């Protein structure tokens, strides 16, 4: 197989997107949807066919030289190694399913052309991140993803809140990109090249302090894109976009780009211990923070958004404790069941007559059992019920953390387990509120289109049996994913401790479920506790940032304009001109019109000249 075929993977969505953007609005809606789905499906097929190219060392190809000047060289090249192969497969696979689902979901929307064009461009940008062989091409995908999410969040632009949510997402991610750009520039300054492989290979030459700084910068970039602390406030608002967008961007692909970046640059990142500790810390703290917020959310999609943020925190935690395979494993399983949950949420919203607030839903189990069962599978994976995909991936992360043995990892492990308990609590809370009890929604919902329903079972299967991808030895598995990624074999703990840990996980899972069951089985009605509103607004981070960042920025800008430009610079210039005019007035008054005065002018002139001569004669 010719390596250049690899370029089919990103180019197909690009072509689909450009086609839809240029002439989509003139074509019938169905054709537009078909073109979009086919282009992504084609990309999925080609990544399947080209899978062997990714084995072992992987293949490198270059299409054309993008920027080449004075010792700097960045070209549109692909590095298709095991990590990229797995990620490409996941991205294109989930994207195809979501495109199918979107074709059904957006049936009644009038400008589908713009929607599908942006969706395809998003897939292209995501593939650029995944496949890029140099950091600048990755950066191109990185910002392209940011723009597409801006376009898609603000898709229903008539309501200004959606547009400003999109803008907020774009600016916050852009702040993250700033750190990534600085790391990129610094790497070029150090190595003179931006090829990922060369950087990873020569990472050992750097001195430790610089390594830590670079890792922290990469972490900053990853936090921006993956909505981790402190750049996470944009994700909940991003739910303003249509549900397929939330499913694709804010569950499966874009938010995982940060994790992927860290895994891609793992050889460099792993060299600095403080960097790794920071990544782990950020991961766990975000997981805990997000889980606590998810507990008190009122809208179905916001619960899922916070849960995504929490699960991504787990992946950061995995990278932080040094297990790339754990992170990727959790990333894959999470992509499947979270996409399933979001699409399920879409169906739920349709069923409940476009109602988002879970306190005003209920009893949907009787309304459509299929949605209930599929949603249940998703919830089970999310909560980490034993033997489901979610359970194995989360368990592996916690095992590796526990195995490190040092005190810091132990604390993080404890927080991780606590968060697992919280996760199962809010998962079942969501389940009970939406599907059990009497129906509380206002109008009668409309039925769910078949296209939306039939894409869900496939994801449910992958979610449930995701564990097979990387089955640990305890369960007789051979950790296929770790071998495929070329990572060291799973950590070996004595059988007793492993069983003990499993038991502990079971206890926390059961506890969470029990509390949720007792609390929400028969819904007592809406309760308004102030600590709930604190959690509802995501620990008031939004108001906090508004207070310390956005408002001072506006005052600084106005001050610069009025004070700086108007008063200072213009003031000086206009002042000088007024001064000249003022003196002009005096000089003008000199000509009084009196001839006698003119003659005196003569006399003064004579005195001036004669006096000057006397002066110079004296000198």
């Amino acid at each position: 197989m010719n390596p250049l075929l690899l370029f089919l993977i990103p180019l197909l969505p690009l072509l689909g997107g450009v086609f839809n953007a240029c002439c989509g609005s003139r074509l019938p809606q169905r054709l537009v949807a078909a073109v979009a789905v086919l282009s992504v499906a084609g990309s999925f097929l080609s990544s399947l066919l080209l899978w062997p190219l990714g084995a072992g060392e992987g293949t490198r190809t270059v299409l054309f030289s993008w920027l080449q000047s004075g010792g700097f060289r960045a070209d549109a090249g692909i590095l298709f190694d095991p990590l990229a192969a797995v990620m490409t497969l996941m991205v294109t696979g989930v994207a195809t399913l979501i495109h199918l689902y979107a074709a059904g979901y957006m049936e009644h929307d009038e400008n589908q052309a713009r929607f599908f064009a942006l969706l395809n461009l998003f897939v292209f940008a995501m593939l650029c991140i995944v496949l890029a062989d140099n950091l600048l091409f990755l950066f191109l995908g990185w910002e392209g993803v940011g723009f597409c999410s801006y376009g898609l969040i603000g898709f229903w632009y008539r309501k200004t809140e959606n547009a400003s949510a999109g803008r907020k997402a774009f600016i916050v991610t852009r702040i993250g990109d700033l750190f990534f750009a600085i790391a990129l520039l610094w790497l070029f300054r150090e190595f003179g090249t931006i090829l990922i492989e060369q950087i990873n290979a020569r990472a050992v030459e750097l001195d430790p302090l610089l390594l830590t700084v670079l890792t922290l910068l990469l972490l900053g970039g990853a936090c921006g894109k993956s909505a981790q602390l402190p750049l996470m406030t944009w994700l909940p608002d991003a739910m303003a976009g249509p549900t397929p967008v939330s499913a694709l961007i804010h569950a499966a692909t874009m938010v995982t780009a940060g994790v992927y970046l860290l895994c891609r640059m793992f050889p460099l990142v792993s060299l600095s211990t403080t960097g790794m500790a920071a990544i782990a810390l950020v991961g766990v703290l975000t997981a805990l923070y997000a889980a606590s917020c998810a507990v008190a959310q009122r809208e179905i999609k916001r619960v899922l958004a916070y849960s995504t943020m929490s699960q991504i925190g787990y992946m950061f935690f995995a990278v932080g404790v040094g297990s790339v395979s754990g992170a990727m494993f959790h990333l894959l399983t999470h992509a499947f069941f979270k996409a399933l949950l979001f699409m399920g949420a879409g169906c739920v919203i349709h069923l409940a007559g476009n109602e988002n607030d879970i306190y005003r839903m209920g009893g949907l189990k009787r309304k459509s059992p299929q949605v209930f069962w599929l949603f249940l599978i998703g919830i089970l994976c999310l909560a980490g019920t034993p033997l489901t995909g979610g359970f194995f991936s989360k368990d592996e992360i916690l095992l590796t953390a526990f195995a490190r043995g040092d005190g810091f990892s132990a604390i993080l492990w404890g927080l991780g387990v606590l968060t697992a308990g919280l996760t199962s609590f809010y998962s079942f809370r969501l389940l009970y509120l939406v599907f059990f009890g009497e129906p509380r929604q206002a109008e009668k919902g409309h039925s769910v289109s078949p296209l939306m329903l039939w894409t869900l079972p496939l994801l449910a299967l992958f979610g449930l049996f995701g564990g097979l991808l990387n089955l640990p030895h305890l369960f007789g598995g051979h950790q296929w994913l770790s071998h495929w990624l070329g990572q060291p074999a799973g950590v070996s703990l004595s059988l007793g401790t492993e069983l003990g840990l499993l038991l502990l996980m079971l206890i926390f899972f059961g506890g969470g479920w029990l509390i949720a069951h007792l609390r929400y089985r028969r819904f007592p009605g809406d309760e308004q506790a102030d600590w709930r509103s604190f959690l509802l607004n995501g620990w008031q981070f939004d108001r906090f940032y508004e207070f310390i960042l956005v408002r001072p920025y506006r005052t600084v800008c106005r001050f610069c304009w009025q004070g700086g430009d108007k008063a200072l610079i213009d003031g000086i210039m206009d002042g000088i001109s007024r001064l000249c005019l003022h003196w002009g007035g005096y000089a003008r008054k000199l000509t009084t019109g009196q001839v006698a005065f003119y003659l005196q002018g003569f006399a003064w002139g004579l005195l001036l000249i004669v006096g000057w001569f006397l002066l110079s004669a004296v000198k």
Partner: protein
Amino acid sequence: MSFAELHALLPQLILALGATAVLMLGAWWPSRSCWILSGVGLAFAAAISAGLLVPSVAEIGGMFSTAPYARFFTILWSLLVGLTLLLSLRYAETHRFAGAEYTSLVLFAGAGMSLLSAASSLVGLFLGLEAFTLVLYVLIAFNRGDTIGAEAGLKYLVMGAVATGFLAFGIALIYTSSGSFHLPEAMHGLQQGDHMRPLGLAGWAMLLVAIGFKVSLVQFHLWTPDVYQGAPAPVTGLLATGSKGAVFASLIPLFAAMGALAGELNSVLAVLATLSMVGGTLAALPQRNLKRMLAYSSVVHMGYLLLGLMSGGADGQRAVVFYIIVYGIATLGAFGVVTSFSRADGEPQDYETFHGLGYRHPRRCIALSAFLLSLAGIPPMAGFFGKFGIFHAALKSDHQVLALVGILTALVSLYYYLRPIIVLFMQERPAHELRRGWIHEFVVLAVCFSLVLLLGIYPGPLLELIGQVLPQP
């Protein structure tokens, strides 16, 4: 006065005798346009004769030289006089000027100017200067229609008379200090250590006062705005270009004769130049009247000319002569436009009357803008190379400070040159329609406009011609 000397003086004779003939005949046949046109003919005839006839004798009666320098200026001034007469043809009709007297006076002024430029001795200088000053007394008050003409005439008369007194006294003192009127020798009295030196310097002081008046340097410029506003537009054109230009033309050989002696003189001239540039610019800024603004701007330009004169050397002199020509063309053009707009009841001078005029009389207003931009020294117009020459000469004779002052005044002066242009083109108001121009005015304006543009784009040949004509010190 041998026949050869008479032959050498032919151009001036044509002008002077022609003027007297026109005066006499005018008394019998009082027809206005015919005498003015004949005056134009005489002027062009004088110019042609000065150009073609190569005089055999070098100097006439020890007072006037016939070097190419003198002939060059004779041509220039007679052409100027011709153009002014052509310009004022329609103006004389509307204001019912006495055709014959007007023509003869203007021709006399032309003769006086060319004699002054040709002066090679103090006596010649005195005679030439007084010749056209007296004529200008009458010309300024020529318009019997309005009172401000008379007032302008009065002011010019009083100031002129006093200035003549100073001039004569200055010449007398220089003569006492050196014993000779002829220029190069007259300055020997100023050698260092010569016991007559303070006397010579006092003479120079008086001379400077008289020059200050004639050329309206700062402290002596107070009469300029009133006379420019009061005098009829063509006469103001002649006054602004001719009289000032001729005085500077005579100063060049005077300073060339001074040579190294000009120690103290340079510092006084520096003070006068700076005062003129700065004072003129500041006074011109708030002006609301085109003619008064042009008056103050002429004060500033005289400051530049003085700066060029002080720099001395071939570069300085070439710059001054080129600047006189360029400044003359632009000012004559500007006053030509004012003449063509003027009606029987007075000339439009205040900016209020010019609002939005640019679109009702596009050709003349574009010409006026071109002249103003040339005076401001903006490149495509000739004024740029004038200023370029002056600054080149100033920097060459390392008068850096004065060059800097020149640059600053050029910058500030841009404001009052742009103001009429803004009023003409950018502040449209439904103003009344002014008078349509006559063919004669269009000819003169066309000549001036094309000269301003041509010299702005390709000044090479004129600069070379001036280079050859300059008096070798």
